[in-house]
């Protein structure tokens, strides 16, 4: 698309022993360079990643059905995951023990650690059974249950804000000081199904991506709401009169600069600065959809998973599509807001 695109992917390093099926979610440990990935092959894998890009598989555990999500605790000691087996599981990295920590009536689509910094871990799980549950990891039963208007599709947390997006374009915002009552229930600003949400690092809003190549920047604070906007991206107008519109599969905020990267099933990811409303960088196209992505704790490494996302059903499931995870060394200028 652009003349000044570079091809950084050539230098990107493929992870050691990638999952055998496509990745559902990637998560970087906020404290150390451990990367977790939940995969459709039921496994949750954890790698240790060096700054050089070298990686080594450290641990893995499995669900009884595809693992749909994974997350790290704030202190980096635990990884939790949810799966189509309706169970939430957790591994303690220090001991290597795996326990079941959550149970739903339907597949668990989203899982996040929602505790405040330096407090005991609390896990939130959101499921296609239209509930959101909070777990304190010691009890069998949830410490809180919230009925959602629809099946949960995406969730993100930046304490004390928790955003849950569901089918039928509903978006619920929770203030974790009162986690069982939605602080705000509304509709997505986007007209199509929600794919992903990601909270701003500044904590005053979230970005939401839909299947229709569009990202909404939503501020939650009433006085900032006017600043909300949305923009189109990940579209391919080169196909005759039809513009092919791809889904936004992932939005990932940079932990330092607060810029974000959108990954799409057009096989590209793009970094944006919402404050100056600029696109910072378009990365060269990959040969498979971007499924999920994550920055490491200091924002110097960017991991992304590519593979088939099933957006075109069977017919798109080509054997040429490779499922893998790659590590990209972040160029500062690609994610740093430009000063103008």
């Amino acid at each position, binding site marked *: *698309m*652009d*003349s*000044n*695109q570079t091809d950084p992917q050539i230098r990107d390093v493929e992870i050691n022993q990638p999952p055998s099926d496509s990745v*559902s979610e990637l998560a970087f440990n906020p404290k150390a360079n451990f990367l977790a990935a939940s995969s*459709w092959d*039921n496994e949750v894998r954890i790698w240790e990643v060096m700054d050089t890009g070298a990686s080594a598989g450290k641990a893995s555990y499995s669900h*009884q*059905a*595809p693992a*749909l999500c994974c997350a790290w605790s704030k202190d980096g000691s635990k990884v939790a995951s949810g799966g*189509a*087996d*309706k169970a939430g599981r957790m591994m303690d990295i220090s001991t290597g023990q795996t326990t079941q920590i959550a149970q739903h009536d339907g*597949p668990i*689509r989203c899982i996040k650690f929602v505790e405040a910094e330096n407090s005991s871990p609390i896990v939130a799980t959101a499921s*296609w059974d239209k509930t959101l549950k909070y777990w304190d990891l010691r009890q069998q039963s949830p410490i809180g249950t919230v009925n959602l208007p629809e*099946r949960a*599709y995406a969730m993100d947390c930046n304490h004390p804000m928790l955003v849950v997006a569901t*089918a039928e374009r509903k978006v619920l915002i929770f203030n974790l000081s009162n986690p069982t009552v939605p602080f705000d229930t509304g509709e997505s600003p986007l007209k*199509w*199904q929600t*794919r992903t949400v990601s909270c701003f690092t500044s904590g005053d809003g979230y970005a939401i991506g839909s*299947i*229709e*190549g569009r990202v909404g920047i939503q501020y939650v604070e009433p006085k900032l709401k006017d600043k909300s*906007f949305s*923009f*189109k*991206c990940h*579209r391919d*107008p080169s*196909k005759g*009169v*039809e*513009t*092919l*519109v*791809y*889904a936004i599969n992932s939005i990932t905020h940079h932990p330092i600069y607060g810029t974000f990267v959108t990954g799409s*099933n*057009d096989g590209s990811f793009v970094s944006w600065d919402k404050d100056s*409303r*600029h*696109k*910072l*960088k*378009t990365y060269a196209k990959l040969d498979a959809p971007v499924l999920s992505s994550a920055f490491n704790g200091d924002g110097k490494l960017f991991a992304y998973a590519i593979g088939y*996302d*099933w*957006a*075109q*059903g069977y017919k798109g499931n080509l054997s040429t599509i490779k499922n893998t995870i790659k590590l990209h060394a972040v160029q500062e200028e690609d994610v740093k807001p*430009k000063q103008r």
Partner: protein
Amino acid sequence: MGRKKSKKLELRPWCWYCEREFEDEKVLIQHQKAKHFKCSICSRRLNSAGGMVIHVAQVHKENVKYVPNALPGRETPDIEIYGSLGIPEDDFADYEQRMREKLGEPANKKPRNQNGNISYNDNISSGGGVTYTADIDAEQLRQRLEQHRLAMQQQQQQYSMPDFGYSSAPMSLPPVPPPHMPMSHPGGGFPPNAPPGFGGAVAPPYSQMPPGFVRPPPVLPFAPPFSRPPVPPSTHRASRFSSPLSPPPLPPPIPSISSSSLPPTLQGAPVPATGMPRPPLPPPPPGHQLFSRPPVPPPMASIPGVGSGMQRPPPPLPSNSTHTVTPISHQSEPTDALRPRPPAAISPRTGEQEPHTGGSSIGKHNIARQTQQINKQSSGPVGSDVGHASLTAFVDASANAPMPKPAKGRTTLLVYSDAQLSVEERRAQLPRYRLASTS
């Protein structure tokens, strides 16, 4: 223009900056890179106006505030245009309208109007029957081009600094809000018989007339009644004379222009412009406006209709105004060029004098553009459109990558469009992912 009469009515790709038509998108993009997106300092061809501006700012440390070779009012680098992507919807509709008027009229081609006929468009097709362009042959066109080139060269010499006085112009590009219109008609009228004060008093009234030009029917609810109806009658001689608007302009265009190869209008037109608050726009390069000419007649036909119909106070009756106006136009052709001319001025002559009326109309066209520009400046930033522009400019301002926006008429195709189920839900239903089937 012969080739313009091509059977199909679909618009060919056109350049928003200079309203030139192209065979296909590729050529258009080449054109834009060469004409509008080229760095004036190192000749590097950039991909977009925004890219060019940034290139110049970064590499040459200079500020470019307008797009070179663009029509007045279209020089803003703020709107990201790539090929025919990104053209503001209003302009697109406006252009489409004009092209439709021009192309669609002859001989019941309505059925080919695929884009859906609008009611007044139908009126035109049934009432008109003559295209303005129908009788121009290639040679006449060439003549006109030559004249125009000469005029443009002169203009260029006069304003060798194309951008002076322009600094703020591009920013205020957004179209004039409808609210201005009501004012312009009652208030903006410059009586035809006010020659003395005319030159000085020009600016304000002018600044108010263009709205009708900029976006004729779509924006202004009342525009159609004014702008459209005048057109069809004007194509008939009989009805033309019955029109109260027609007499005044008749004399000027013919005698004054027809004789010399370089129409006074063209020479003259720029001159008054200097007296105007805003100097003329960067003169377009000699060549390129040839192609912008075709679109000219129809708008002129309709827009002056708007202007004269509404701006002239009712009293000036045909007989009266003929007398008063004629002298004016002879004394100072330019002012006449500035004056909105009723459609009759152009259309009746299509057959005989086409080149000249065409030429003069270009003069007017330019001026209309200029005034349009002025208007924008004077009217200040305009709410909704500014908002729109800035919003759409989100991606556009990007240095690295112009994000083409789908132009109007493009359809979008979602790769995944199921509103009910997410891909994960579908996928999870596959046998191999079911809980039971797994270990």
